[in-house]
């Protein structure tokens, strides 16, 4: 078990490190710069989509979907961060509490 714990941790640190070790001039190239700028957007939006619509390997529509929809409306009205988060939690928690969604 210690093998898995330590090897897993070492690899994950190395992955985080690799990105920081790329020399600055490589990242200055316009096309590379654009890719680096867009990468977190693609990854985080994909993550949000998966966190909202997937459970393991199954696509599921449950309380998370209306919660994210309400959060998006709040964002359009420029609600502060904490309000967006609380509204999403309340929507999902509320729907589950009243048995309206799983």
């Amino acid at each position, binding site marked *: *078990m*210690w*093998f898995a*714990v*330590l*090897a*897993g*941790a070492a*690899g*994950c*640190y190395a*992955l*985080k*490190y*690799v*990105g*920081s070790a*790329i020399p*600055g001039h490589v*990242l200055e190239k316009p*096309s590379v710069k*654009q*890719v*680096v*700028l*867009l*990468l*977190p*957007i*693609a*990854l*985080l*939006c*994909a*993550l*949000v*989509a*998966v*966190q909202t*619509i*997937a459970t393991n*390997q*199954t*696509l599921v529509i449950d309380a*998370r979907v209306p*919660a*994210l929809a309400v*959060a*998006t409306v709040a*964002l359009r009205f420029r609600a502060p*961060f*904490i309000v*967006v*988060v609380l509204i*999403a*939690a*309340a929507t*999902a*928690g509320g729907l*589950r509490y009243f048995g309206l969604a799983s």
Partner: protein
Amino acid sequence: MESTAADWLTVRKEIIGNALSIGVAVAMYGVSFGALGTTTGLTIPQTMALSLLMFTGASQFTLVSTLASGGTALTAVIASWLMGTRNAAYSMRMTPILKTSGVGRLVAVQLTIDESTAMGLAQDETAYEGRASRLAFWATGLSVYVLWNSATFIGAVSVSAIGDPKTFGLDAAIAAGLFALVWPQIKSRIAIAVALGGALIALTLTPFVSPGIPVLAAALVAIIIGWTTGRRVL
């Protein structure tokens, strides 16, 4: 940008407040992780080592669940690496903003996760000579680190979790929180295309490949669109 000291104090207060609330939401999952670790056969020190050293939630959950479902140590390790690959893209993006070196760089690297990157990038990069972005990254990274690890310990020793975080809608809250943080970055047409394309690819692949890969595949969208539009202003 015109800015006064009073403005900065307000901005700083808001950033720190947000960083703490992200930490609290994430901590609820830390309790679950701690409980999962010790109930699936890891010792308390092993569970803690994962939160302290690996410190990237998705990889930690993947490693533990792979072991729990009968996977070999090697499969579990590789699955956790796969989940952690996106952090490489995050540190690539954050390093020039953070302007760290030496030990500071090594610590920043460890704190580079979804939440700290999203918070750092949610700020205007040029505001207060970049101080807002740097504070957002560090405050979120440290807040999550301290709370995630404390929560893991509580979960690991008490075993019984506070309850399913889903009851409180925390799964939706974390997704909404991350979305709120990317939101300011998806203004241009190119960024919107990348956001939608990334989400679409990830969802399309979800039923067919093991968890972690769908999100990673979204990187392709950024690479293709970024490479072909490189000379255009975002």
